[in-house]
């Protein structure tokens, strides 16, 4: 192995291009960040770039969003906790079940494997709007014994299961592509030693697939964190279960148009996803998919 070459493949022009892309991608969000510290009248009255000349800043919008509201909302913290409580198990379940299925599609031996895999992959396109009502009926009418609901309403359980279902097709597709890349010799060797599928899966596949699991985990985390549609249907709204997105949608005000609150709210809800991204960045070193161990 040669030592890593520090010399860049790219030229100054490429650097300039990268910076231009970065600026274009950042400016809209930056505008919102500036806006979130401006008084309501200014937000509605002139553009955010005017802060250079009229320096009026306020924390009012954040106070507005974070302050305790009516009896419905002890405060935003409660919803924050809900979001975490929904998203963490929702991500874990999807990852584990997805990886198990992906492993079998990659290395299991059974008839109709490829067709079944393609079928599962194609399920990505079922619009979740169409699946919400049947799933809700399943939870409330089918999965119950007497008065006992297997997945009780008013808890996180329904949300976990719903999110897992909607996340699985993509999880299986992405993780399969990675797990299939793992060299067959490694797995064959383990088999010859008499290891069963569960040993191979937990001892070999999971450690080798960690980068892929981490990458997909982040995206799944983000999708769940930003979800509103599924939450609306399965959470029942109150501070017991509802995630932060649902709360933010409510505090826009009955008659809409409370932009200034939205500006602050958007940033309050973005903190966690960004922290997760920075925290897990080191797992991105090996790719989500290709070239895992090749060459």
């Amino acid at each position: 192995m040669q030592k890593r070459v520090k010399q860049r493949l790219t030229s100054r022009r490429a650097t300039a291009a990268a910076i231009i892309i970065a600026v274009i991608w950042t400016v809209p969000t930056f505008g919102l960040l500036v806006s979130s510290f401006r008084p309501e009248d200014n937000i509605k009255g002139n553009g955010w770039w005017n802060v250079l000349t009229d320096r009026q800043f306020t924390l009012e919008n954040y106070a507005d969003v974070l302050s305790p509201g009516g009896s419905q909302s002890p405060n935003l913290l409660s919803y924050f906790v809900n979001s975490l409580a929904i998203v963490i198990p929702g991500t874990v379940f999807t990852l584990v079940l997805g990886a198990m299925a992906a492993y079998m599609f990659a290395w299991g031996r059974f008839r109709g494997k490829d067709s079944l895999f393609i079928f599962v992959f194609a399920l990505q396109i079922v619009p979740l709007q169409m699946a919400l009502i049947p799933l809700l009926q399943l939870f409330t009418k089918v999965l119950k014994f007497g008065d006992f609901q297997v997945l009780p309403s008013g808890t996180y359980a329904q949300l976990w299961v719903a999110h897992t279902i909607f996340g699985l097709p993509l999880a299986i597709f992405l993780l399969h592509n990675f797990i299939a890349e793992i060299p067959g010799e490694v797995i064959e060797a383990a088999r010859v030693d008499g290891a069963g599928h569960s040993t191979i899966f937990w001892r070999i596949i999971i450690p080798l697939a960690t980068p892929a699991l981490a990458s997909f985990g982040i995206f799944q985390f983000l999708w769940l964190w930003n979800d509103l549609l599924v939450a609306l249907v399965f959470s029942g709204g109150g501070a017991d279960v509802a995630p932060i997105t649902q709360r933010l949608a409510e505090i826009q005000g009955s008659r809409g148009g409370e932009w200034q609150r939205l500006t602050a709210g958007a940033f309050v809800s973005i903190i966690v996803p960004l922290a997760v991204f920075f925290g897990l960045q080191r797992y991105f070193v090996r790719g989500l998919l290709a070239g895992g161990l090749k060459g």
Partner: protein
Amino acid sequence: MEDFADKGLQVVVGLAIFAAIIGLIMLVVDRAPKSGREKLQVAGFLAPALILLAVGLVFPALQTSYISFTNRNGEFVGLDNFVWMFTQPEALVTLRNTLIWVVLVPLLASSIGLAYAVFIDRARGEKALKALVFMPMAISFVGAGVIWRFVYAYKGAEQNQIGLLNQILVWLGQEPKQFLLDAPENTFFLIAVMIWIQTGFAMVVLSAAIKGIPTEIVEAARLDGASAWQQFRNVTIPTIRGSLIVVITTITIGTLKVFDIVRTMTAGQYETSVVANEMYTQAFRAGEPGRGAALALVLFLMVLPVVVYNARLLRKQKEIR
């Protein structure tokens, strides 16, 4: 505080139950008798996911297919809903728009994401540069809608502009423009938002793939005196081809299902509606579940080429192995 303790408990119990189920499955597949062991192990691994998919997606999909042949009162009406879709101008517009979306978004988001990943590879401050482009992914669609309102917002020429693009137009001495009101270009302004969001996804995945290219190959190419462009074409692209296809596939499917952006920014007005948004509107707001279901079915058909392509790819890979 006890409130949080209760929530924490729910999570712990939930995770514990899940772990117990998985543990049980592993126990069973390990203790399986020698004969039929492979079958049982395969079943044990696949069953949880497949059962969930069957009840949560396959069954609703079948139900939707049935509903698409019924009218508002649940009576069977044959192909009426599909006739409506291919004859009503409003429905045709959504089909046209969806096609524009599905061509542009995957193409542009992937290429910009790839270019960016290559440009910043091993640059100083790579992490920060990545974070900047990744950030839109972390913002909810509602948030994105607000952000872009401040970009596209329109005020008359005699007012203070609050939208960035119109301010730039004014500085250049132009008249401010109603970006989201004029069809057909308004669709492109919405597409820009989707590209802005999806580029982060493409960039993260492709950047990881690039980092996975073995150093020796890169070195060899460099010693052969290949230019940056040649290296990119002859080394980078072939090596990360698999990832590229996965990224394009994923973004394509995400784009076909695009709904939140259109809903928060124009609510599908001004001829910007797309199939998924129209489906939601028809099924939930206009009280026409049959039409909504028919649109969902068309969505399914639109993704078929992507599915077929991936299926063939899978077969090819099998031959290589």
